[in-house]
């Protein structure tokens, strides 16, 4: 199963109203594509939490979407201590927690990470896509 991990920059730009109209449309189409059987979308919990700080209503709307879409189509992976997370924190101490969580999920699933700030991940060993 192919899919994407959205970091907090992408989620805020697309869902919190702070990004461009193009970002909003692109994120919405990524989610439509997932619902229609395309690549899945994972929004790490810390990335969603940061977005909720900007737009609190995003929590309820995201929950409605996850609950109404197919199983595993759109997910919010929780933060847990794993060897991958430990390694990410050790090797990339400059990443803040939302970014570290997104990287850990991307590595664990071998899915590309989508962001609006690809330069934040320079030198980080994940496949990064610019939204």
């Amino acid at each position: 199963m192919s899919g994407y991990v959205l970091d907090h920059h992408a989620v805020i730009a697309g869902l919190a109203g702070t990004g461009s109209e193009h970002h909003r449309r692109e994120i919405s189409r990524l989610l439509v594509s997932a619902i229609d059987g395309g690549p899945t979308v994972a929004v790490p919990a810390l990335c969603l939490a940061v977005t909720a700080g900007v737009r609190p209503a995003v929590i309820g709307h995201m929950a409605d979407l996850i609950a109404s879409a197919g199983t595993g189509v759109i997910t919010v992976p929780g933060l847990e201590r794993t060897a991958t997370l430990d390694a990410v924190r050790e090797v990339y101490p400059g990443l803040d927690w939302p970014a570290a969580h997104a990287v850990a999920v991307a590595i664990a699933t071998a899915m590309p990470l989508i962001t609006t700030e690809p330069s934040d991940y320079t030198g980080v060993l994940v496949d990064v896509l610019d939204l």
Partner: protein
Amino acid sequence: MVSASLTVMTVDPRRALEELCGPLAADPVADRAAERAVRVLHAQAAALAWVRQTTGAYPAPSAVARRLAEAAAQLRGDDRDPVTVLIAVAAAAVAEHQATTAA
């Protein structure tokens, strides 16, 4: 005896999506641009997966990823088939990378 009932609200996913993202279709020109951007994104992800399957490398070597990102940026503004173009770019970049590392 008190009986309790559990009500499960069923929400149409597209309606939930509109609540989350706003109107899904409004401006045909902007919609086409976003659809094209997502199509290119899917193709770029497919090319990265092809690199992983072909070379066993995850993530893709930085030189290969850079070439794919450059080609993907160009594809957002034209009508070429993104999968065909990006797989070809990936194949050429991988060959170049392997030749460089073998030298």
